[in-house]
């Protein structure tokens, strides 16, 4: 069995550590509040993605957890111990950065050995474990190469091996895939998820890419302006967004004007149930997923005439933009077998699935 999996440096059995942010506040000089009292708990072995637009505070949250930024208020608990005053090098974390962070003067193997050297592990043991870690990320034949001799994806895999080899209590991933091209990004995110599941290490994954977050995380925390807007499983976030911001940020949404009344929103002639029936009555914007808009026959109930504007082939599905007779534009997600032509007259209707609403 790989030595990374089951033992710590002291030889005791590895127990994944719980992590908690408790009312953490971080202000930067100039008055910017990067974290506005966030609280978040990670179960041992859980992978939580912090998702949000640029400047929402997700990287700051990660850096505060790593000790690279000092929190102004609140507590950070790792394994139940408040580490707020503990320097970064004593927090027992592994971290992979957005920019390539391999030490240029060391080979891949020496890079991976670095953390073990800092912990006083004997040379032979160090080399053995570093080689194992490189094998884990599929780079066992690249140990003698320097960073400039590796591709971006390979550098990030070495960085991952380097972060894991010390068997840290928490793994922190700060947009580790954002500098890579699309295909490598998908491959590496699957590899990261596989290794994280295998090792059972508590992991925080920062990303601005919603597809990436939904693909790898057990739970996703959507952040906005220093606060966590919603936290839940990818399915919960997608199907039951707690706010218009979440509905807009996670997946695509059509924005249709309507009126809320008696636990539903009325859009045109259609009555759509609300995800949150407690929304106050009155004018609102219904947020309808593209897959909840379908092409209909002219005589169908609730069918509305529309004109095709554009259509995009996306491999397993197609998205078509249409303009309704009242000027509103909608995106319809449908099977690739149908080939709408720009200018074609069509009819669309909404399915009766629950929707979120935003203030009008």
């Amino acid at each position, binding site marked *: 069995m790989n030595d990374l999996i089951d033992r710590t440096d002291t030889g005791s059995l590895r127990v994944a550590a719980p992590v908690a942010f408790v009312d953490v506040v971080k202000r930067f000089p100039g008055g910017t509040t990067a974290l506005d009292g966030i609280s978040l708990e990670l179960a041992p072995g859980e992978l939580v993605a912090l998702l949000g637009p640029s400047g929402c505070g997700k990287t700051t949250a990660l850096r505060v957890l*790593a*000790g*690279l930024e000092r929190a102004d208020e609140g507590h950070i608990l790792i394994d139940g111990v408040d580490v707020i005053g503990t*320097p*970064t*090098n*004593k927090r*027992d*974390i*592994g*971290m992979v*950065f957005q*920019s*390539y*962070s391999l*030490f*240029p*003067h060391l080979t891949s193997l020496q890079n991976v050995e*670095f*953390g073990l050297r*800092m*912990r006083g592990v004997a040379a032979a043991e160090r080399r053995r474990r570093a080689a194992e870690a490189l094998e884990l990320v599929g780079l066992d034949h690249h140990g003698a190469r*320097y960073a*400039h001799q590796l591709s971006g994806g390979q550098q990030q895999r070495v*960085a991952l091996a*380097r*972060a894991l080899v*010390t068997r840290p209590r928490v793994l*922190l991933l700060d947009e580790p895939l954002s500098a890579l091209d699309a295909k490598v990004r998908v491959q590496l995110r699957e590899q990261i998820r596989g290794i994280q599941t295998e090792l059972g290490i508590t992991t925080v994954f920062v990303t601005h890419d919603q597809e990436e977050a939904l693909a790898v995380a057990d739970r996703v925390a959507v952040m906005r302006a220093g606060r966590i807007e919603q936290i839940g499983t990818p399915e919960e976030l997608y199907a039951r967004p707690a706010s218009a911001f979440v509905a807009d940020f996670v997946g695509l949404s059509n924005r249709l004007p309507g009126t809320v009344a008696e636990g539903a929103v009325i859009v045109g002639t259609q009555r759509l149930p609300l995800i949150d029936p407690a929304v106050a009555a009155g004018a609102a914007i219904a947020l309808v997923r593209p897959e909840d808009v379908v092409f209909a026959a002219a005589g169908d109930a609730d069918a509305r005439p529309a004109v095709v504007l554009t259509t995009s082939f996306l491999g397993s599905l197609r998205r078509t933009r249409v303009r309704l007779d009242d000027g509103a534009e909608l995106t319809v997600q449908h099977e690739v077998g149908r080939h709408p032509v720009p200018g074609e007259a069509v009819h669309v209707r909404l399915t009766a699935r629950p929707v979120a609403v935003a203030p009008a």
Partner: protein
Amino acid sequence: MSGMPGATRTGVPTPSRLARWGILGTVGLLFAVPIVAMVEFTLRRGLEGGYSLDRWITVLTFDLGPEYRVLGQAIGNSLILAAATVALMLVLLVPTMIVVQLKLPQLRRVLEFVCLLPISIPAIVLVVGLAPVYGVISRAAGSGVWTLALAYGIIVLPFAYRAVQSNLDAIDVTTLTEAARSLGASWPTVIARVLLPNLRPGLLAGAFISVAVVLGEFTIASLLNRQNLQTALVIVQKDDPFIAVIVTLISLLVAVGLLLVIGAIGRGTTRRTS
């Protein structure tokens, strides 16, 4: 098409091949004429005419009379000064630059201004300001030649700063530091095991260029009544201008050698970071 005037991919016009060779030839001539003249001068036999290597052999075999002992002492002084100046640079300037880069980036422009300032101040003006300071230094620490290193530490600042800063700009100091910290490295370890190895080319370049500046410095040493290679050469020149010119040529050769080493280091760094 390389010989044709044109524009690079960045849109900057480039001179033609003829113009490039013309510029190179003119500048080369400007440097070569005095050096060739100096070499020719040292080979002259004197009144009997003809050329000889005798004087070069005398200098290179250290077969000089006691009247030239001042030269040996001055070379020793200059080497001490060079070492002390480089040590000052490494101990004071480099840590300051690292701290500013990592923790106080808002002070970078201020530090750059302060470090580049000496290049715009004539040595004579510097000496006028330094003279009273050296009065105090002499009373407190004596008038040993090493004290000149304090002034030399100032005049090499612009060169050392540029060499080290270009290296700092070429590596992502912040990310490397944070990566090392996250792996358990203390601050001294970060500096010793991560930053200094990656700053080696800049430090070497800064050190070599400082040595070259110190070996060629005359004004401050002369006006502060200290003896170094350049002031000794003036003395020697009065007795035997041939020997003075030979030593000047050798020191010039050493400086060129240092610059070649810097160039080789620079090429090595470019290869590793590309």
